């Protein structure tokens, strides 16, 4: 009788150990995030330009007006100058637009344009769309930002 009790205890102990190992493996597995593409550099929709988009001061702060830099190069890598840029966007999952109207305010040289007036008022998935018109033609690009 005593020995059966021992086996049961041993079994329970081993089961607990197994649960622990499985949990540890599960927690350390790389998370497969099914979120949107959040790359900060990409080709525009029709491949006319290569666009980069970064916060001007490096960090994103929720609830504050910020400026970002949109860098435009041709497919061959030459900076795109004199581009006309319009900005739109919103939160795809909330079905609403941007809380501000960001604009391209300055050309900083080397294909870099300051996009000022960006404000992310809540956490979640934001999308910014740039319609770009330059000597090479017109194209657009979407950037996703997840806060």
């Amino acid at each position: 009788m005593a020995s059966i009790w021992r086996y049961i205890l041993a079994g329970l102990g081993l089961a607990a150990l197994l649960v622990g190992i499985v949990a540890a493996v599960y927690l350390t597995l790389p998370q497969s995030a099914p979120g949107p593409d959040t790359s900060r550099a990409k080709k525009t929709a029709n491949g006319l330009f290569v666009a980069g988009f970064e916060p001007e001061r490096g960090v994103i702060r929720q609830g504050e007006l910020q400026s970002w830099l949109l860098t435009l190069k041709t497919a061959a890598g030459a900076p795109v100058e004199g581009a006309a840029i319009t900005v739109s966007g919103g939160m795809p999952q909330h079905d609403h637009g941007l809380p501000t109207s960001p604009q391209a305010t300055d050309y900083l040289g080397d294909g870099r344009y300051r996009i000022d007036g960006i404000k992310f008022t809540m956490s979640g998935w934001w999308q910014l769309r740039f319609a770009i018109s330059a000597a090479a033609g017109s194209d657009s690009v979407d950037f996703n930002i997840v806060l």
Partner: protein
Amino acid sequence: MRRLASVASLLVLAALALLGGCGEPQFSDAEKKTIASLALNALPSLKADTTNQYADVPAAAALGSTLFFDAGMSRDGTVSCSTCHKIDRQFQDDLPQAVGVGHTNRRTMPLAGVARNPWLFWDGRRDSLWAQALTPLENPLEQAGNRAAFAHYIKKRFGERYERIFGPLPDLSTVPANASPLGSEAEKAAWSAMPAGQQDDVNRVYANIGKAIAAFERSIEPQQTRFDRFAIDLATGAKPQGDGAFSPEEVLGLKLFIGKANCVTCHNGPRFTDNSFHNTGVPPVDGLPLDRGRVDAVAQVQADPFNCLGKFRDGDESACRELRFMVKDGPQIVRAYKTPSLRGAADRAPYMHAGQFATLDEVAAHYSKAPLAVEGVSEVHPLDLSDRERAALVAFLKTLSD
């Protein structure tokens, strides 16, 4: 064998201790992060207002405080800022719509943290605290005065105090007793007849009245609540003490607030507001004039001579980015109203921009049901909260008042 068994039983005991002793953690790491972002200790110090060079001048705040409580700052000497912004009532009046000289169409907003608002009024029709303070002074339903009369009044009652702060008063000897571009027909005519330089002089005195009142209002800040004590303990891992401990109902309410009920989507940050405008399907009030919220405020703030881009601003134009980059049109600003702070909300019924809901239970029921908007599109979607969940949300909101 005996050895294996004892190791195994130790493991079982350890597993049981983990499950039973510590219990299920109350909040996930993500929830803890959100809770910390709502606590008052996450509130940054108040930024300088470069558009008002007197914002942090004590003498200006002192004069502003005098003016705030002075019923002489109205047409008939009966209404002051403090008539509706009552000092012992969180600077609001508990009425569905404010009553000054007449009956207005909007709920008085409380003032805690008001200097942090990029937009003032429910619809954001003013873009600075000092420009806001001028608006009720001339609204025929609020203080019902006119700027020429205010300039004369300041000179007569507070001339010396004014001049010590703002410099010499202009010569007002030929300024009509009553004149304003926004007043009665007679006042408008009197204003039009004034030379441009004299209009500027009066406008300058008027702007300074707003700047003094704003300097006073900057001192009105939110106070620590039970929620903040709870949040600090949660962040530091200390066991909540005394009233900092939450009941299971309050914990559930907090979890809903930052989770399933999506309240924190707009009511975020330590002031529980995103400082933005949303249509949440709040119904209009029968008998009040048509009210379309933010969409009609855009033209008003653009036309305001005291806005950030106008000539009465101190400092440079870099302070005007909110105005410069505001959304000017589009369906999302139709019947959109500012997200109010929820700090102290449980003690100041009724709710919404025209006092539509008498209790927080009604507010929770509205968001749970999410009716369609009468105009524009409501951003909220039905939550179908149970009675218990709605009560828990209300219980949590009360922790922002205690």
